């Protein structure tokens, strides 16, 4: 309550306009984290409910240490959702950190001076020196409690009040009907089905899905019973060029005795043209898929699906990925080791191996569709993780629209949020957390990493830049917006997110935000882009993993220079065009007189 309301823009490091006295942060968010980036709303409501968790709401003379910045002394305040450090001087920065962004904390004591090391989900590590042992302990326990709230409805998005004018409601920006209309003109083979309206057929699917026109809802219900989690095959992507499609589903529940389902066979065969064959990409290795049979899962038998060829790829899931992330971040944070050790650790983390594997599978899928002219069905076990990585990356490769900002947003909305990727479970913790839950996994981060790899190889073909990907990563893990809350549409409906929270897209799709997310080099490229997946071509995504361990000053400079070059060019073009027009007008006026 003692806090001044934050001054928008001043001292907050609003992304578009960094405060004058601080070096321009590369991704423009590093000082404050996602919390502040949307101009934090006032949290008084929250304070009431969290009052008992906050034993010491305020401590003076706290010193903040961050790499590459001078230490800042100021007052530390805890609110229901934020940790705020204010130097109480004009024109100096403040730290606004969402509690939900905190992954883990360590505390240390040297005499009366306590030190809290805060490790964030975006991999940043900051240190607070707090005078007074009691204060320090209180602060630490409050942070711990506030950063691990059980109830979703206590999360910040439910308390956040935007301080910007909402011109477009992001909740309605990418409706399934609209998305379907984009290609419904090209084909009548597909239809919208409302069979899952009450989330009864498949709890992790959205109410509206796209299925073959020739299959009725009754058949869909039967197929759902045959697929893991009720995830019957639905349309993921329609390739306009040749009418081929990418579908996704859960694994078929064949079990050990080779159960089959005529409707399932009929459904997926309905997508094939006469005489054509399709591919089924199973994102699990063959032996893993075989083992799944023991648990009632399995894969499509050749005998029952004679028109389909199955390809097994091995994409890891769950704790393997989480371990990989933990090891990678650990290696990136360790400043001590030498070159060989660094390369060794990078290799041992296997992160790039996962990137390569996912990219390779996506390229293969895209290749089947575009070059082989075959439709494909992709699934792993549940069809909510590796499946989505592959389907969405294949679209990045195949479809120019998904390389634009809106198109990419639509892709995330369609292929991740509505397709039922359990963000709540996967992104609950990040690389520093000690309590390792089975369902935590950086699946979405891996996807973003793969997109970044393609972006790096085709720097002119994407409308967005690296900042956009970083932003999505941050908001998936901690956000003031409701977009990434919940595990699927059904949960989001129950939480009434649309009514009670703000959509990330409402904020992002404003010109002031878009300007810093736009790639100055973008030139629409209507072609299929084939990235290289050779190890030589894949790199560590420094913008994420070394973001806090390096100074980005010189890279920022280069970026600025690039923007300037482009802007100057555009400016000249405009000028030249104006002059040309003037000249042309003058000449047409004078023309008849000039030529006798």
């Amino acid at each position: 309550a003692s806090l001044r309301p934050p001054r928008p823009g001043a001292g907050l490091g609003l992304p578009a306009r960094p405060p004058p006295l601080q070096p321009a942060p590369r991704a423009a968010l590093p000082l404050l984290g996602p919390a502040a980036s949307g101009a934090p709303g006032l949290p008084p409501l929250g304070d009431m409910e969290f009052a008992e968790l906050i034993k010491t709401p305020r401590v003076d003379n706290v010193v903040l240490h961050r790499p590459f910045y001078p230490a800042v002394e100021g007052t530390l305040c805890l609110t229901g959702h934020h940790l705020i450090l204010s130097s109480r001087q004009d024109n100096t920065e403040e730290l606004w950190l969402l509690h939900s962004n905190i992954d883990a904390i360590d505390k240390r004591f040297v005499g009366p001076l306590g030190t809290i090391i805060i490790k964030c989900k975006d991999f940043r590590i900051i240190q607070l020196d707090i005078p007074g042992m009691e204060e320090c302990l209180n602060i630490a326990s409050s942070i711990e409690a506030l950063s691990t709230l059980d109830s979703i409805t206590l999360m910040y998005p439910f308390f956040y009040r935007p301080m910007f004018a909402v011109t477009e409601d992001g909740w309605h920006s990418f409706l399934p009907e609209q998305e379907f209309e984009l290609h419904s003109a090209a084909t009548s083979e597909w239809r919208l089905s409302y069979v899952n309206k009450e989330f009864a057929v498949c709890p992790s699917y959205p109410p509206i899905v796209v299925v073959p026109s020739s299959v009725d809802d009754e058949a869909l219900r039967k197929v759902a019973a045959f697929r893991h989690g009720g995830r019957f095959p639905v349309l993921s992507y329609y390739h306009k060029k040749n009418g081929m499609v990418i579908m996704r589903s859960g694994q078929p529940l064949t079990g050990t005795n080779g159960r089959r389902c005529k409707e399932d066979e009929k459904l997926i065969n309905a997508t094939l043209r006469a005489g054509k064959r399709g591919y089924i990409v199973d994102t699990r290795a063959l032996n893993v898929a075989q083992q799944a049979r023991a648990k009632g899962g399995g894969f499509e038998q050749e005998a029952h699906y004679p028109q389909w060829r199955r390809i097994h790829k091995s994409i890891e899931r769950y704790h393997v990925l989480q371990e990989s992330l933990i090891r990678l971040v650990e290696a990136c944070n360790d400043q001590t080791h030498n070159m060989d050790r660094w390369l060794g650790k990078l290799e041992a983390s296997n992160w790039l191996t996962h990137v390569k594997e996912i990219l390779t599978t996506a390229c293969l899928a895209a290749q089947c569709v575009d070059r082989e002219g075959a439709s494909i069905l992709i699934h792993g076990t549940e069809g909510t993780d590796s499946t989505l990585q592959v389907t969405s990356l294949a679209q990045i490769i195949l479809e120019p629209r998904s390389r634009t900002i809106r198109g990419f947003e639509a892709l995330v909305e369609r292929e991740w949020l509505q397709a039922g990727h359990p963000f709540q479970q996967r992104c609950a913790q990040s690389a520093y957390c000690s309590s390792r839950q089975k369902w935590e996994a950086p699946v979405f981060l891996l996807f973003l990493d793969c997109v970044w790899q393609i972006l790096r190889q085709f720097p002119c073909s994407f409308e967005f830049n690296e900042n956009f990907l970083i932003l999505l990563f941050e908001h998936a893990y901690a956000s003031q917006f409701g977009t990434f809350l919940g595990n699927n549409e059904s949960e989001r409906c129950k939480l009434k997110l649309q009514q009670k929270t703000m959509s990330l897209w409402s904020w992002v799709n404003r010109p002031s935000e878009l300007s810093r997310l736009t790639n100055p080099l973008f030139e629409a490229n209507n072609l299929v882009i084939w990235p290289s997946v050779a190890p030589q071509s894949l790199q560590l995504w420094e913008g994420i993993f070394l973001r806090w361990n390096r100074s980005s000053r010189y890279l920022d400079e280069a970026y600025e220079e690039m923007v300037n070059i482009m802007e100057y060019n555009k400016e000249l073009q405009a000028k030249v065009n104006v002059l040309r027009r003037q000249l042309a007008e003058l000449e047409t006026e004078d023309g008849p007189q000039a030529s006798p």
Partner: protein
Amino acid sequence: RRGPGTPASRGRRRTWRRSQTRGPPAPGAKPPPLSLPPRCGRAQVREAAPARDPADADPPWSTSARPRLVAPARREEDQGCCARGRLGFPPGRRPISDRELARRQRLSISPIAPVLLFGEKYAAYTFKLVENVRLVDRISSKKAALGTLYLTATHVIFVENSPDTRKETWILHSQISTIEKQATTATGCPLLIRCKNFQLLQLIIPQERDCHDVYISLIRLARPVKYEELYCFSFNPKLDKEEREQGWMLIDLSEEYKRMGLPNHCWQLSDVNREYRVCDSYPTDVYVPKSATAHIIVGSSKFRSRQRFPALSYYYKDNHASICRSSQPLSGFSARCLEDEQMLQAIRKANPGSDFIYVVDTRPKLNAMANRAAGKGYENEDNYSNIKFQFIGIENIHVMRNSLQKMLEVCELKSPSMSDFLWGLENSGWLRHIKAIMDAGMFIAKAVSEEGASVLVHCSDGWDRTAQVCSVASLLLDPHYRTLKGFMVLIEKDWISFGHKFNHRYGNLDGDPKEISPVIDQFIECVWQLMEQFPCAFEFNERFLIHIQHHIYSCQFGNFLCNSQKERQELKFWSGMYNRFEKGLQPRQSVTDYLMAVKEETQQLEEELETLEGRLEKIQKVQLNHTKVKSKQSEPSKHSGFSTSDNSTANTPQDYSGNMKSFPSRSPSQGDEDSALILTQDNLKSSDPDLSANSDQESGVEDLSCRSPSGGECAPSEDSGKDRDSDEAVFLTA
């Protein structure tokens, strides 16, 4: 090139369309101009914008910069120009548009890129020709390309038979580092040619006898004919002298020393090495402290390996500290030399700001100690007053050679997994060595700029590691060396004039293979690593290092030393260098190219703006002006070139159907092949399966399945791509 929007590509596109509509298109034929190397692209710009005077379109670097190329870059340039097949395809195969003809004519008289039309023109130079040779693509391991091998006096040329591509690979003989004849197989006799520019060619020659012939000829030809025909640094110090006397030098080192602020009250130009009397591997003009008399210098030189006495390499004006270089002292276990001690003292005194100097031995301590047994060694701190002695463990040339070898083996791996690659990279130790060199450079630069102390650097002979370290330190300290001109000066100063054994290290003449080592390659890589970290600090770009050919925009030069960088994680594998012939591995669009095209366009716009303003003014002043009619005619072509370039989204797929095939990596806005290619493929499939295989191979798509680890099975396939079914089979095994 910038691609869809630029005048160049527009010109291309138009040409291509016309030819397509006219005659029966050759199956899978590609638009010819795209196979041109980037430099030739300039000519296309002229073509598309005929209103411009061709004379002023000549790139400023086209003539002046080229003779000064750094060795590896020059090799690339030589090769890169040719490998992409600048011959296009033979006349007559498909109708040539007037414009295309004009282009060829223009190109053929261009001094930069002389285009030889295929056939009689270079038949004269050809003295060996082997047909039905197969060139194995080691990355995609698709079907090998069938073609004809020509040996000329200067090049090995492989021309593919495939009529739609006629792709050519040119290898300069002096580029060849090793030739390996492998055991004859059923298909023929494999010949492996490794080049110094990291290109690897695998040829399969049907007849063993032919193969042997080629092998023998190449072994002989791979030795250079004349120095002048090689890249420019390939002269030893002796030759250097002669060359210099001929006034060959474009870069005046005395100017450079003047720039540093020399001579001054502490440093003077010494003529002690006149006619190379004291040290034959040193330049004649050497800067030494004023207090060092000829007696001291000569005395000191006798106490140093190969008489390489301490001499100035770089003088830091701001605080009078300096970087000096020498070879190791002949100290053995106890020997000392008064003059040498005086020499070091003189260096210290030449810097009033500091009461000590650093003596940096860039060798690992163990190596230096081993040298003591041979009567060489390092300075004993007790004998020299006020020195701080420091070892910096950079390994010797043999370790470096092996390290490079190991790393190249990693690069040559067929579809390695990520772990294979990273493990191999780590195991090669290459990046560790690069880091050691950079660390040494950082140490020296910090000592000079922050501590204000002078530094004497040596290794064993003081011409490899010392050159690397001194030049890295100079680069860090002085923004001038980060300019184009400055960089050349730096190479001239620290490498050429101080007798780096270019000839031995890069094996230009027949010599001891143990003397070969990638010393300057390492330096260049260090520069590249710095460039990655400080993109705006250099006037030149990666291409300058590789091609050294174009320069990009120059930005402000920050003094970036003060920022103590942690290079550990930021050192990267430079695939642009070591895998640069595997175009598929490179980013498909280059920011640099794009920006350069934009820059160029900006410049054109500036010019046009000026002329437009001028004309507007004129018109406004003089209402009736007959010249307007004329100017109007030239206007539209320009107009179409520029105005639409930025908002052009209509890059229809057809234009790129061939782009990918011959020239996949550098063109920024080419994405890839697309529907047009599919169409041509479909045509092909009905008629000629072999061709379809070919066009498929080059689309770069097949690479994916081959490079994926599990795709290893679908790798080398004589039959993959012959028809659709076998392609499917390929996936199934995956």
